[in-house]
């Protein structure tokens, strides 16, 4: 059973541009999904998120279950209605947040045990419970509870986690009460081990889920390992289902993963970095706190069409960032606009058959000296995208 339609509209080798029809919105991939942890993207209204072009936004199950609680969200008609977001939503399983935020979280066969941040009592999040909470929140896409292990860990724990993730997916599927309205995505685990990743992909694909996520990345592994895992998983996941690389959000990573055939991404990076005064620009990042910005009368990015770039100078933003709420509002607006424009450009260049030109242009802006990192060159070779024109290191 699935509550989505995934139509590939164009391809360039492994890269694809698709239309993803979800219960609340029809979105276009490749797609960056901003993170709205507690039922809001920090500092932006839903009207602005629509203007920016956001199509799917994330809610964090762990945070929402604590406050305002999934029962309350359910009683008030689901998260879409609660936060007045007419477009699509995705919730994570809550497991990753627990393991990364709580010191005393421990994973057993039953689920994730943790100390309640409210009263300190021991608590347990089972796959069944994670799905039940996500059913109450009501997002278009919900994620299976997986056994998350840091990619930097090696040894038998990785294998155990992969097998447990497969055992848990069946419990998630069995617990899922709203398959006609919500799409359950399975998460590929297996660390950096190609054999384990392969077993996990096969196991999940047998379950015929509406979509698949590649998990356990963006956790400090080296870039070469990172892209190889993505490349391996995208090569064996079904062509007809969306592929979501979890926690990935640097523009360069998104371009590389899209070239390798991934479709969806999420990251707190664009909004978090905005709060620290950093703007995303074609050349990389612009640190607006820097003294050199204080008299700079140019916009953040002269090629950006967003409200902030049309109205404000770097000099003005320099005096706002990290001091005034408006500084983080305006920078978050620009950064999300940048990410959504990147998504739109990826989608349209694949459809128009100009994907390699887009990639080269992107890399030329980011690495004007031609010093494109080797891992990017290697990944692009596997993706069949010729970047020799912007890549001068041999």
């Amino acid at each position, binding site marked *: 059973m699935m509550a989505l339609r995934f139509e590939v509209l164009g391809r360039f080798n492994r890269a694809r541009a698709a239309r993803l029809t979800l219960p609340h919105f029809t979105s276009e991939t490749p797609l960056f999904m901003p993170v709205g942890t*507690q*039922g*809001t993207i*920090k*500092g*932006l*209204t*839903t*009207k*602005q998120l629509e*203007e920016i072009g956001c199509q799917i936004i994330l809610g964090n199950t762990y*945070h929402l279950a604590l*406050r*305002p609680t999934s029962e*309350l969200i359910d*009683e*008030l008609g689901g998260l879409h209605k*609660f*936060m*007045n977001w007419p477009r699509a939503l995705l919730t994570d399983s809550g497991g990753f947040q627990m393991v990364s935020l709580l010191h005393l979280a421990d994973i057993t066969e039953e689920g994730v045990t943790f100390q309640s941040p409210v009263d300190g009592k021991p608590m347990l999040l089972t796959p069944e419970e994670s799905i039940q909470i996500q059913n109450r929140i009501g997002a278009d896409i919900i994620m299976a509870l997986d056994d998350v292990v840091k990619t930097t860990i090696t040894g038998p724990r990785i294998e155990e986690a992969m097998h447990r993730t497969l055992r848990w997916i069946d419990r998630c599927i069995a617990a899922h009460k709203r398959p006609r309205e919500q799409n359950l995505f399975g998460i590929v685990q297996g660390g950096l081990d190609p054999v384990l990743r392969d077993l996990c992909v096969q196991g999940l694909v047998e379950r015929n889920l509406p979509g698949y996520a590649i998990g356990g990345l963006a956790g400090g592994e080296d870039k070469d390992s990172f892209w190889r895992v993505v490349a391996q998983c995208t090569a064996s996941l079904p062509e007809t289902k969306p592929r979501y690389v979890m926690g990935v959000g640097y523009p360069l990573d998104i371009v590389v993963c899209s070239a390798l055939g991934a479709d969806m991404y999420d990251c707190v990076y664009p909004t978090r970095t905005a709060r620290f005064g950093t703007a995303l620009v074609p050349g990389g990042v612009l640190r607006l706190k820097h003294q050199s910005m*204080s*008299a700079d*009368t*140019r916009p953040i990015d*002269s090629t950006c069409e967003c*409200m902030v770039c*049309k*109205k*404000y*100078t770097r*000099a*003005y933003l*320099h*005096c*706002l960032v990290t*001091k*005034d*709420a*408006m500084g*983080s*509002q*305006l920078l978050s*607006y620009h950064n999300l606009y940048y990410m959504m424009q990147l998504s739109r450009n990826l989608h349209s260049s694949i459809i128009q058959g100009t994907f390699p030109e887009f990639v080269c242009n992107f890399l030329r802006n980011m690495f004007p000296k031609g010093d494109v990192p080797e891992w990017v060159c290697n990944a692009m070779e596997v993706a069949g995208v010729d970047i020799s024109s912007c890549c001068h290191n041999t």
Partner: protein
Amino acid sequence: MPQAERRERIFDGAVQESKPENEKMKFAVKAWSKSGRARVGLLQLSSSFAQGGPPAKEIEIETPALLLTTRKGLPAFISPDHLSSLPSPDSRLLQFSPMHFMEGPNSNTISTIGGVHQLLGLPDYGFIALPRDSILSLPECSSSNKHGASFETPCGRFLVKPLEYMKMISSMKPDLWVSLADEVHASVTVKRNKASVDRTIRWLDDCISLKSTDGALFGSIVGGSSIEERQHCAQEVAKRNVSGFYLGGFGLGDNVDERSKLLHAVTDLLPKEKPRQVCGLGLPEEVLQGVAAGIDLFDSMYIYHLTLGGFALIFPLDGKCKQVWDSQQIAMGSDGTKINLKATIYRKDTSRIVDGCICYTCQNHTKAYINHLLNVHEMLAQILLEIHNTHHYLCFFRVIREAIREGRFAELRHTFIENRRDYLLAASLGSRVL
């Protein structure tokens, strides 16, 4: 705005010609209340002169009006796209202090950008520069001296002399600006108060002789709680070539009960055809008190403080100010004019802050959602509250203007205050019963 166009405007701005004082701003009284002090006026600004560009449309605002208090030229939480969804033209006057920019951008940079209208990306808005506000630039009278006024700001204390002040004004090119004043706390000695009047008049003369801007000048009137000093100051300032008046020294420890007397003593001496601005009268009762004394322009720092506290304005805007007393609201410490959305009773409340309010917040969000945002300390709570509260307060000013025009102002003021008193009484009785 594209770079080329922006540059062109800056160039035009550099060759602008100085206009005579009476053409920079127009003001006309349209209606008087029965008491003869409260008035409805029309303030007209031509927004184009500040940038020197092609003639832009005029901003016409009816008074009594609310000036939106800003941090560095923008409301604390309302971004420019949401600013434009507030009632217009009512919301088109923004107040800022040049002291907000002490840490930058510097005068040269602001000048290069083309002044505050360009800096803030709001060419169609009117900007009013005032040395002090009640948020980021507080007068620090114990450090002021004969050379200049001292202000406490988030980036430190600054002594500002007339020459520096005028340098800031001419780079910022506001539509209206207030002369540098020595605003003192109500508790200062008679001697210190007298000195503040002398300085303020002298600095006004300095500002007039140094000015190189087209913005209309409002002369500052101080004098603390001394009627004689205030009257002396008002008479001196009224002799000068000014477009309007700013009544300083309020909201600085002054006694609310004696305020009407002081306000009247000043406004009765001022020429009727020029606008009067005040800072530091924020509460609805204080606004009504100011309007009754013939004040035309108020600041909105009250909205800012409400918003930070999680409060939403709810008092009726039908001009009758009839209250429905809700025992639950009373129990939550509401005073009938506002509610605190942090209160647990709003946890599941899917109603709007004010039924029928057409602001962005009420059109899109419930009390339950804002309660959640406040609980988890999300900035969207302040954004939504500032939008609603500003909208609501702008509508309050509309109600005031209508009442003056229809000869009901005294009645409106009386009813509002009586209702609030009754509400507080009911609240105290209610809590006793509980």
